């Protein structure tokens, strides 16, 4: 047998790998779940052709004026039926012929209804003989990179890296402590740094599989753009994973039971799921809490990945989020090594 296979670092790392791969639930959460989530969100927020807005009119004359507009589907309704259709949401707007003109009935808090008001009014005015003051032309652009799926893929990637790193490290260590395995290992001549390093090494191997599978899927199915350098994106993924591994180690450094570890883990991750802009932009939160939001490692990770993938920014332009991630990594790692309980 060769020397590598006899080395304790190799054995520790390989065994970590076996333990991950032999846990079917872990495989689901790490590989399948993010892809399912991306599929679900991709379907829910797919770019549809511009909506056709249903409207009603009280005379056939008005209906005819609207019939030519591809953005509208108009039906003729008497005022009573029209009001009912409006109140039940079957139409967005009812155009009522008046002796001295037209009245539009619609809900001005509904953006679609306001668009219908503009389209209907333009068509009716044109039918009555109004002409464009300036000739205008439309040029339609459907570009990838500005869709919701493009926005959400880096968010899901960041969230997935956080979850797999924190659970992968934190849970395994606390389980070993609870089952007294950690104590048994410490009673053997195992070098302790190798135990911790084996987690990092197996994490990095899993990371490659995890990131390639997820981003490959996003690329093939949704044609999500990669505008920045792939090497730099890989660096960001590794940095993110190490940062959350360190946080996982911190959470696991003293917890004695799985229950305590789960609680701590959720305490750390929940605010980031909400605040860090996985599903919508973190800049929507009030200015007062923005410094907090910006300081969270997941916000920094997702900002950096969006910057790389969607805007093609270089690491130099992403110095701020990279610095935040590095600071969290060093701080969490230093504190957890100091307070780690080996038994």
């Amino acid at each position, binding site marked *: 047998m060769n020397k590598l296979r*006899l*080395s*304790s670092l*190799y*054995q*520790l790392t390989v*065994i970590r790998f*076996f*333990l991950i791969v*032999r*846990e079917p639930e872990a495989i689901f959460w790490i590989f399948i779940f993010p892809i399912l989530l991306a599929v679900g969100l991709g379907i829910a927020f797919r770019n549809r052709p511009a909506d056709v807005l249903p409207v009603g009119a009280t005379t056939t004359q008005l209906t005819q004026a609207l019939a030519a507009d591809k953005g509208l589907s108009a039906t003729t309704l008497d005022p009573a039926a029209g009001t009912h259709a409006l109140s039940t949401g079957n139409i967005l707007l009812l155009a009522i012929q008046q002796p001295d003109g037209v009245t539009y009935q619609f809900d001005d808090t509904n953006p679609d209804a306001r668009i219908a008001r503009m389209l209907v009014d333009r068509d009716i005015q044109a039918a009555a003989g109004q002409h464009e003051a300036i000739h205008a032309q439309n040029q339609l652009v459907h570009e990838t990179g500005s869709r919701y799926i493009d926005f959400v893929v880096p968010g899901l990637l960041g969230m997935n890296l956080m979850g797999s790193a924190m659970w992968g490290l934190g849970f395994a260590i606390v389980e*070993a402590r609870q*089952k*007294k*395995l950690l*104590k*048994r290992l*410490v*009673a*053997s*001549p*195992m070098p302790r740094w190798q135990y911790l390093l084996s987690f990092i090494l197996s994490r990095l191997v899993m990371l490659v599989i995890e990131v390639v599978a997820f981003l490959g899927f996003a690329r093939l199915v949704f044609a999500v753009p990669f505008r920045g350098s792939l090497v730099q994106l890989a660096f960001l993924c590794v940095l993110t994973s190490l940062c959350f591994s360190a946080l996982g180690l911190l959470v696991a450094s003293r917890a004695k039971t799985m229950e305590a570890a789960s609680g701590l883990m959720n305490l750390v991750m929940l605010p980031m799921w909400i605040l860090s802009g996985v599903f919508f932009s973190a800049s929507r939160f009030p200015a007062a809490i923005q410094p907090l939001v910006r300081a969270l490692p997941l916000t920094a990770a997702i900002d950096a990945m969006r910057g790389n993938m969607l805007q093609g920014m270089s690491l130099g332009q992403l110095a701020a989020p990279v610095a935040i991630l590095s600071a969290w990594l060093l701080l969490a790692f230093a504190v957890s090594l100091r307070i780690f309980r080996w*038994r």
Partner: protein
Amino acid sequence: MTQTQIAPPPISRPSPNEATRAPSLLLRGLRKTFADVVAVDGLDLEVNRGECFGLLGPNGAGKTTTIEICEGLTDPDAGHVQLLGLDWRAAANQLRQRIGVQLQETQFPDKLTVEETLRLFRSFFHHGIPAEESIRTAQLEEKRNSRVGTLSGGQKQRLAMACALVGDPELLFLDEPTTGLDPQARRHLWDLVDALKQAGRTIILTTHYMEEAERLCDRVAIMDHGRIIALGTPQQLIASVGAEHIVEFAVSAHEPPAPGSAPGIAHGIVDAALLLAIPGVMSHRVDAGLHQLSVSELHTAVPRIFAALASQGLHLSEFRTHSASLEDVFVGLTGRNLRDE
């Protein structure tokens, strides 16, 4: 307190420290307190090379704390620990290479196989035996490729033993190796320890089973409340009871004897003085209505005991005898049973 030195059997393997002939284990004035509980209260102990030494005592006697201090897992509050002539503070890494440890309640990962687990532990040691050999020693050949989660309690315990053996240790610590096992698995493990003993390894084990200590150990220390209350070979300790047989009996009386009365005084209607007057009856005590006599010359004493009770007009409701055991040593020293937990 009985204290004897037993010549260690010859060690079959050459040991690096043989020249110095330091004892395998030397404890002096060991003390450890957890919160307000004194777990180890001034312990002195010496274990020789090649000896199988047992720490016997009830749960909470301080056995595990003592053995974990020896294993370098717990720091003592005071006292001196020396293993193989080395100190934990000065030579922790070297010591971990040279001892084998089996802890209470270690759960190895369920999803690993026996062989993977042993390869992992083997990789920590510079020198040792191949994983295959430890599998053979622990008689786990058929389970080599089974996941740990599928093993029985006895097999898991043998795996723990195999993990302690892969480093070919000079000194082996076994903490309650058979607790929770069924009698058959226990006997199986005893055979394994026997084989290790024959191979000349120094073994230190804790147990609260007296028959285990009697069966396996060359010398035994009986612990109670963090102290060693008796030390010697099982035979010496049993001899200290004063007689080799124990007679237990109960009588049916008009009124039951008062519980908790001190031994040696007449209880209810049993006249202890009459019993103690019988040649061969060394002592008498009463525990919860059960009379206990330590007796030598069982064949002549028993008919006289019957006669003495009959002369008092008493009717026996229970009567049995057994050879004196370490249990009786413990009872004699503390007035409690080992398994009163």
